């Protein structure tokens, strides 16, 4: 057992601990930053948040009142973007993962999707102006912003859904085909249900990102102030991230608007965390039903 001399053994264990520290320290640094950020936001924002704050429009030049139009606006554009990007994204992913032949064109499409996911959101914003605001005359509106955000989401949803589909073992498909299922039946019954948690995670992460994006909505429909909630998808709207930006940097009485800015940031963060939480819970429930993963 004690083939190594005592000093060599001590050295081995010492080194092992050093490596552990090397790997643990970055995690700890990262956690400290995130925890501090969340703590700082909530400490400054939590006093502002009240029932009135989330159910009333802004008042007195946005130094008082609530942020209801921003919450509604953000949820509205996010909804529009997902209605657009979920079906297209998931179908495209099914095509790429299950049907597309493995040739140069497919590989090019696949890498194009990956590159599109990395394009800065401001570029999507400008593209949205050209295509949706001007091109198809949607004007500055919820619809134009939602579609722009949807376009930005699309590569994310395609990439994560394709990943989820490819992670399902080929034997599930073979087993179904061998009893005489058609390709679609095999996918429908023995691939999609098991890829669902992965697809859902991609969608919810895209959703969380969409809610926080400012650049794509900046030129396509968001507005500094409107008292009314958007009734039709062709109206302008207020949104949380833009409201935060405006209050923090554009307001003429910055100090007076500051508490509301913190409150807005906290609400945005809570919304995002809520959806992440839902994603987490859904995954847990589905993963325990799909035993093959463990």
């Amino acid at each position, binding site marked *: 057992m004690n083939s190594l001399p005592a000093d060599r053994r001590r050295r081995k264990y010492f080194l092992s601990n050093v490596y552990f520290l090397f790997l643990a320290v970055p995690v700890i640094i990262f956690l400290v930053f995130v925890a501090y950020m969340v703590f700082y936001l909530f400490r400054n924002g939590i006093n502002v948040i009240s029932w009135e704050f989330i159910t009333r429009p802004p008042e007195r030049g946005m130094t008082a009142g609530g942020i209801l139009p921003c919450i509604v606006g953000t949820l509205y554009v996010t909804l529009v973007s997902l209605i657009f990007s979920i079906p297209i994204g998931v179908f495209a992913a099914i095509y790429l993962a299950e049907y597309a032949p493995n040739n140069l064109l497919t590989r090019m499409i696949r890498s194009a999707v990956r590159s599109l996911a990395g394009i800065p959101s401001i570029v999507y914003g400008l593209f949205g102006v050209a295509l949706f605001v001007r091109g198809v005359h949607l004007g500055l509106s919820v619809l134009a912003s939602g579609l722009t955000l949807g376009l930005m989401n699309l590569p994310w949803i395609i990439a994560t859904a394709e990943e989820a589909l490819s992670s399902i073992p080929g034997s599930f498909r073979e*087993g179904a085909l*061998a009893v005489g299922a058609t390709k679609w039946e095999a996918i429908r019954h023995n691939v999609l249900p098991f890829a669902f948690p992965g697809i859902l995670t991609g969608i919810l992460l895209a959703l969380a990102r969409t809610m926080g994006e400012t650049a794509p909505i900046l030129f396509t429909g968001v507005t500094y102030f409107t008292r009314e909630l958007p009734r039709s998808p062709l109206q302008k709207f207020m949104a949380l991230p833009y409201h935060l930006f405006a209050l923090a940097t554009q307001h003429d009485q910055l100090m007076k608007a500051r508490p509301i800015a913190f409150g807005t940031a906290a609400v945005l963060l809570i919304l995002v965390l809520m959806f992440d939480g839902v994603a987490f819970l859904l995954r847990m429930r589905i993963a325990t039903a799909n035993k*093959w993963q463990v």
Partner: protein
Amino acid sequence: MEKGRIEIQQLNLWFGTNHVLRDISLSIPARSVTAIMGPSGCGKSTLLRCINRMNDLISDTRITGRILIDGRDIFSPETDVIELRKRVGMVFQKPNPFPKSIFENIAFGIRIHRLAHGRELKERVERALRQANLWEEVKDRLHDNAFSLSGGQQQRLCLARCLAVEPEIILLDEPASALDPHSTARLEELIIQLKNEYTIVIVTHNMQQAARVSDYCAFVMLGELVEFNRTEKVFTNPNDRRTEDFLGGKFG
């Protein structure tokens, strides 16, 4: 002609430029067990997967020659691949149950072919599980996940899944290679039971297994059919030197 007979005529198969099966002609009798044995990589699994056209899934495959089942060419354009795979069931090397309940695993094929529903569906599931000698072990937990079964049980479940759509022919691709000796013995017993009703083709690299379960035995090497005969004949008095060497353990 007797139902369930498989006639392979001058079959050649290429994956890309790789000539995997060379001019194979073989006549597999109905209601018997035919073993295809040979060293690994000889093309025996590929040959098996021609019979239910599972090779269709691999791109860049080229096939010449014919396979007749009940006198009809399975490669002809009139052949419905779905119908073919319903008649020619397959069990794979690694048990591949679906990650669903035991019941749903069996019901899947019955449902997609709309063979039964309601009470009759339940009866058919039970019948398939009984045929696979699995009913007694799982009857109280039909709604448990199939992954909770042991490897041997999973493989019998896969066999039941294939029996549930009432095939005429069953293809077994090294079905015992992932199983322990006890489960293997149970599976072999089952194969022998089933041959009265089905044409069974089993691929194996285990020659003792071929000797134990099969009536006819084909020996394939480097994509060529070296020998095909009654199993006793192949094992006691092979025609070809290469078969003798293989059985004698000179390579494998």
